[in-house]
């Protein structure tokens, strides 16, 4: 069996966690849409969507790491909290950016300009985080 890939139990657990995270994401998005219909705007668009997406992603990654379904058996023991810290920093950065630009969008700035900038910056942050994680993995390997 290939030690560089996840073993069968890890794949099964990761798929289960992924399905649950997807359902949680769908539930939260529907709930947010429902609240919007009742006039509740806990965060301006698209900050609310971005926050829900990054929160569900964070939950998925944390649960996967805790269930020992993140790294394959052949990979050397690494500190998984580095990944959690990196993702947490990305979530915090995304939330901060969304909050800062979301306030501007709610104050009368067209949503298109604020939303596009938010998504672009978040994408850049995600790419930087992935790059940092890859560099750390390569150095530890």
């Amino acid at each position, binding site marked *: *069996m*290939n*030690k560089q890939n996840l*073993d*069968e*139990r*890890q794949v*099964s657990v990761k798929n289960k966690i992924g399905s649950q995270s997807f359902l949680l994401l769908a539930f939260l998005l529907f709930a947010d849409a429902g609240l919007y219909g009742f006039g509740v705007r806990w965060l301006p668009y698209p900050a609310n969507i971005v926050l829900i997406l990054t929160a569900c992603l964070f939950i998925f990654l944390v649960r996967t790491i805790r269930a*020992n379904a993140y790294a394959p*058996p*052949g990979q050397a023991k690494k500190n998984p909290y580095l990944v959690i810290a990196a993702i947490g920093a990305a979530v915090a950065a995304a939330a901060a950016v969304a909050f800062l630009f979301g306030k501007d969008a709610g104050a009368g700035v067209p949503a298109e300009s604020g939303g596009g900038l938010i998504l672009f910056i978040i994408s850049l942050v995600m790419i930087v985080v992935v790059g940092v994680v890859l560099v750390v993995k390569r150095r530890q390997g």
Partner: protein
Amino acid sequence: MGKNLKLKSARAALGLSQKDVAEALGVTRQTINAVESGDYNPTIRLCVALCRLLDKTLDDLFWEDNENE
């Protein structure tokens, strides 16, 4: 599903730890632990690999009887 005591005793008889078995088969120690504790149903591929490693038959390790409960 009950604990797989046959697997555990076969492993212990050869003086192998869960980690030794896991490394030999290319799986994680947690997977071997889950199979022994009955928390995970291994595929036939993993069952055959375990049998070959421990020099037992499928019946010896995985046939459920009163001993596994």
